């Protein structure tokens, strides 16, 4: 699918002007006194794909909830120059009573977008994730990978300049995960959103990202950051190159030491 020129120009414009997220010394203490995040600072610039890797329970998901506005930080600030932030949840969170097309359409409905435009946005998004022909299927008949694609398409209908991913491919097998990684990457390149990706898979983080932040647990804090120099688009085979492996190894060492 070719994005309409009008929307493309809007994306490029917003990329330059607004579309970055700045976290400054963000900390979070839950009402029960548990400190889950301490002094987290980083930036997601337009066109960047940033990953957060860390052990389970290091507050990665909490951090995403804070960035999205679902939670308030206890300390520090989150500056977001983006009118809308997309959020891809860990589960596909499809509404089982809606078909694929109706699910993809949901956000455009919630934002009161007019019916004709809604239909166009929905059809475009379905085509983007390769689900044309499945519009009238109910979620119960879809595989895990297809459900995830529907969830992605639903987020893409609003053309968000920034997309947050909360371990979206944690529950699928490795082969499928690799493929979904590649598909997400090509969407990142074609749609021009900036990505903030939470995962506990080092390979996934290194493969997808231009920058990887490693987090330690309790309280969650960034202990190391890596620039990932590989050119986009990245091919499947990159995962087996010696540079990739040695970079993954350094990330892994930091993670293990924490």
């Amino acid at each position: 699918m070719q994005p309409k020129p009008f929307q493309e120009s809007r994306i490029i414009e917003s990329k330059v002007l607004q579309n970055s997220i700045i976290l400054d010394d963000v900390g979070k203490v839950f009402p029960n006194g548990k400190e889950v995040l301490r002094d987290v600072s980083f930036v997601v610039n337009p066109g960047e794909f940033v990953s957060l890797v860390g052990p389970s329970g290091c507050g990665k998901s909490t951090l995403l909830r804070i960035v999205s506005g679902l939670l308030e930080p206890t300390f520090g600030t989150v500056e977001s120059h983006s009118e809308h932030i997309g959020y891809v949840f860990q589960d596909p969170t499809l509404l089982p009573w809606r078909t694929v097309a109706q699910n993809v359409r949901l956000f455009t409905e919630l934002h009161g977008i007019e019916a004709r435009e809604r239909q166009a946005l929905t059809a475009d998004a379905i085509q983007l994730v390769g689900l044309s022909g499945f519009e009238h299927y109910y979620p119960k008949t879809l595989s895990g990978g297809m459900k995830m694609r529907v969830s992605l398409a639903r987020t893409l209908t609003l053309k968000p300049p920034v997309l947050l991913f909360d371990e979206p491919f944690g529950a699928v097998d490795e082969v499928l995960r690799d493929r979904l990684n590649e598909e997400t990457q090509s969407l990142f390149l074609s749609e021009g959103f900036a990505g903030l990706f939470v995962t506990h898979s080092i390979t996934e983080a290194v493969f997808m990202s231009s920058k990887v932040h490693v987090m330690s647990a309790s309280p969650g804090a960034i202990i190391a950051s890596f620039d990932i120099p590989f050119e986009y688009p990245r091919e499947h085979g990159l995962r087996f190159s010696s540079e990739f492996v040695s970079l993954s190894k350094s990330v892994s060492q930091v993670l293990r030491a924490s």
Partner: protein
Amino acid sequence: MTAQVDQLADKERLIDFKQLSRGRRLARLTLPPLVFGVCFLIVWYAIAYLVLDEKRRFLLSPLHEVLQVGFFDWDNFSRILKGLWWTGRVSLMGLLISIVIGCLLAMAMSQSKLVERAVFPYMVTLQAIPILAMVPLIGFWWGYGQFSRVIVCVVISLFPIVVNTLLGLQSAEPEMHDMFTLHNAGRLTRLQKLMFPAALPAMFAGFRISAGLSVVGAIVGDFFFGQGPAGLGQLLRRYVNNVQGEELLATIIVSSILGIVVFWSFGLLRKIVIGKWYEAA
């Protein structure tokens, strides 16, 4: 393309396999209940003819006599049908009122924690009260007419609807609520597009339980109040008093059929409304 052809072939093989074993599967499905049913009839007739002597056979008349007297004698059968009409009407009216009140109450509780906290303990307590003990009071307050019978049905069938609907409304996952929050969904939108559809499976489970209870309520009310046009409850009492064993059993059979039909039609309704998307866990 080849993958598609392969899939098609697989599908055909599956259908083939299904057809081949259809006879056997049918037998496996129908034979056990059939055998059990025959055993039941044998025991029935054994009691009627071997255990009971002729003077006491009215306690359990054999099935063919029940059919002859209760169903093939138009005088008797039309009386039972009329009873079915009155009782069916009362239980349906009671059920509909319960559904309306129950759903509204559950919705109010789902919208306000305060209302839920205030009302829910009573709902639980109400369940513990033997509702039949309330029947005389209902007659005492509202007389022994059709209205009181409907009230009995409502009182007896309200609780499962409230509880199931409330649980259903609260069944949407937190992540889904987050999703609606992220997109600035208001209360009404959230209720209409998330909570209500999510509640449907539980609501239908509640409706089905309550439908059965409402039939019980209609018969009990009619049996207890014993005035006005004779429903199944009054007939049951009359046939017991007059020692009309065959008519009594026929009325019981008709009552059972009413219960089964009501239960079954709610199952069907549920299948029509949510069968397409709902996957029973």
